[in-house]
């Protein structure tokens, strides 16, 4: 699994009202197989930062390394899951969606279907392999998206608020499932969220960002045994600590 290094990365763009620093001088690094969450209010540049790691945006300064190699464009070393359920291809079944990356890699059909089915089993959806996305619930569609991002075996998994559009009950279930998937696959994960409890539940470390300009305010290590108990005193203390960083920046 690859480590990610973000070195003094900035992204600025010009608007009619002047120059905006979406991200300013962000630096952090992950260990291989680390689960890193980025939290922050909307507009803090957390998604922009993720999009730069994904290769959709090019930093205006600084550099990003994955497994020691500078990022340029998209590649098979990263898997990406978005927030919107519409990310799945509606004209492909769950299995065909998951097999897409392998198809692009030129893996023969029988082999890629075998691997795709394995990935669907990992997210507990093997029974729905032949279903089209519009017949699946939102939570199931996001599980297919996770399986799809993992199927071609990237070292890094990038996730942009993948459970934000789900109801609370499904979200809890999905977080448990993701923690399990992560434990089994040992991917390096960068997970963007605005939900503090979600970050404490999932992350080894949490990067807290603030808006205008988008800056890293704090990095907090979550030293709790897994699986984590969201009702334990320590869990709530971490939530409080993160919220403290988030509200302090609003006053500043």
């Amino acid at each position, binding site marked *: 699994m690859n480590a990610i290094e973000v070195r003094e990365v900035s992204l600025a763009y010009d608007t009619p009202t002047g120059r905006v620093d979406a991200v300013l001088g962000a630096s952090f690094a992950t260990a291989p197989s680390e689960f890193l969450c980025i939290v922050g209010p909307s507009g803090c540049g957390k998604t922009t930062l993720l999009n730069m790691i994904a290769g959709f945006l090019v930093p205006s300064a600084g550099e990003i390394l994955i497994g020691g190699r500078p990022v340029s464009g998209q590649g098979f070393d990263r898997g990406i899951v*978005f927030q919107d359920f*519409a990310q799945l*291809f509606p*004209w492909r079944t769950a299995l065909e969606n998951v097999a897409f990356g392998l*198809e692009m890699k030129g893996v023969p059909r029988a082999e890629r279907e075998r691997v795709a089915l394995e990935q669907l089993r990992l997210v507990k959806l093997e029974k729905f392999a032949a279903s089209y996305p519009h017949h699946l619930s939102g939570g199931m569609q996001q599980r297919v998206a996770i399986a799809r991002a993992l199927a071609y075996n990237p070292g890094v998994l990038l996730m942009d608020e993948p459970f934000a559009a789900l109801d609370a009950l499904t979200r809890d279930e999905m977080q448990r499932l993701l923690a399990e998937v992560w434990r089994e696959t040992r991917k390096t994960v960068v997970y963007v969220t605005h939900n503090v409890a979600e970050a404490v539940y999932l992350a080894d470390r949490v990067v807290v960002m603030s808006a205008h300009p988008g800056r890293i305010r704090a990095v907090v290590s979550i030293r709790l045994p897994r699986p984590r108990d969201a009702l334990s005193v320590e869990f709530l203390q971490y939530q409080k600590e993160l919220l403290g960083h988030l509200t302090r920046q609003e006053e500043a």
Partner: protein
Amino acid sequence: MKALLSILVAVILYELLARSGWFAAALVPTLPTIARTLWGMLGDGSMERHALNTLARVFAGLAAAALTGLVLGFLMARYRAVERFFSPLVSALMPIPSLAWAPVFILWFGLGNVATVLIVFYAATFPMLINTWTGARAVNTLWLRAARSMGARGPALFWKVVVPGASPFIITGLRLAFQRAWIAVVGAEMLAASAFGLGWVIFDAKEFLNADVMLSSLVVIGAIGLAFERLVFGSLERATVLRWGMVRAGRT
């Protein structure tokens, strides 16, 4: 069932009118007269020959129009230069009725199939072009991002994401193109076809005041149009975009 009922009501109203005695029987023939004429023309094979001629012209024109519309539509959506060049041409040519070209085409190519097919082609190209162009631009950017992150580039991205992603528009374009082509071919045959074809039958029958022949031909024109609309395009939609949930069926 509802469709049958509405057709039945219309037919009964026509029959009452034909039997009212307000019009000359030769001009407004009763349904049994039309049926007898139609049966006779079907029996000696002449109606089939006319219909096949018309269908051949429609498909020649439609095939050329679909190809032109698809290729140009995708190119316009993909390349700004192509769009800038063709967009004003499309705006200028589209409002001209295809039949207005009939005398010009006849002058250039004489009476016969070339002029007829060209008129059909002209009528069918624009709906195909506009829909492909719009459809390609309306493809969800999330699909493109997801596909690129999974290594899809160039032709693979086009065939496996852009084309299926634009398919609801493309199918609608094809459907409208067929309707326009079917309308145009009848008019074109009246003006430009030297012999054979359902439109020519109507025009020719005028010389002999054969209203029953005209109406028989009209019945066949309507029936073929209806069959294509319901069977061909209906099943095409059910097999693709409806099945994928990319468009919804109307509520019952």
